[in-house]
């Protein structure tokens, strides 16, 4: 069994296989967020997922946003929270709030 928190290694492995990969990172939390700052979710354009940035509430929305970052290479800073209904329809059942940074992992000789 390998380290199940080492999402970066998983993402780097996917990249080496030729996948297009985005890495989402929890950068700030308020209230009762289930995952601490620094937690990663890695996604590929082909639909693979590893890790988590919440208890499962917002992974779908983050993966959706990651598609844009994978397409144009522009990083995004996403806000999630029960009080923020403008940009995102998903909220956190726990009442927490968090910010998630999404970046594309660039492969060698890109």
């Amino acid at each position: 069994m390998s380290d199940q928190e080492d999402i970066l290694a998983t993402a780097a492995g996917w990249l080496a296989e030729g996948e297009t990969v985005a890495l989402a990172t929890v950068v700030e939390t308020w209230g009762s967020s289930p995952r601490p700052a620094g937690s990663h979710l890695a996604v590929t354009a082909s639909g693979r997922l590893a890790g988590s940035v919440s208890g499962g509430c917002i992974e779908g929305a983050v993966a959706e946003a990651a598609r844009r970052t994978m397409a144009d290479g522009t990083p995004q800073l996403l806000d999630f929270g029960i009080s923020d209904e403008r940009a995102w329809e998903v909220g956190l059942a726990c009442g927490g709030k968090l910010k998630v940074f999404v970046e594309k992992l660039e492969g060698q000789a890109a």
Partner: protein
Amino acid sequence: MKADFLARLQRARAADRAVAVATRLTDGAQFLHPEDGLPAPLAAAADAALASDAAASLPHEGAPWFIQPHNPRLRLIVVGAVHVAQALVPMALGLGFAVTVVDPRRAFATEERFGTGVTLVDEWPDEAMERLAPDARTAIVTLTHDPKLDDPALEVALRSPAFYIGALGSRRTHAKRVARLAEAGLPEEAMARIAAPVGLAIGAVTAPEIALSIMAEIVARRRGAALAGR
């Protein structure tokens, strides 16, 4: 993250160097601490993140920054390549520990029994322990039940800053062990560092249950949970 930056980060991690990634969240610009020479406020935040092993965010020159520490893996040194060790090792690997199993008895510390994800050492425990030099990010568990193997390992462990030292054995076994170590010159307060009987009291019976109780106690000690106190 640029390809060459990811490669540098992965090299540092593979070499067990403590580094931190500083990311400017407005445009994704990234720097590797300490080698990239961050501005003083960011460098200080990176040092603090490494010391506390916790990510941090802070504003710098009008932009939000995120600091991700990458400390070397915690280490677990297991003395005794016994049945409980076979259950303990995969759990520890899954929890992110770099694991070393020490046992001079060749029939025990084999790749067939422990796989390839672990370092197997067939030196005598005192020599192995001196060489492995446990630090404050190291946990040590003795499992052999044999004083000839456990005691020398514990003597080295108790002179180190290891954050957890556990020894398998009943209360009676441990009382005898303490008496032997006292005779060898170890002070009372050193002995008080030994978690014995090892592991949280969850009524563990089988090898995997004992391994679970040990890993639970190591995590509790590491995270400063109240139940880690004995």
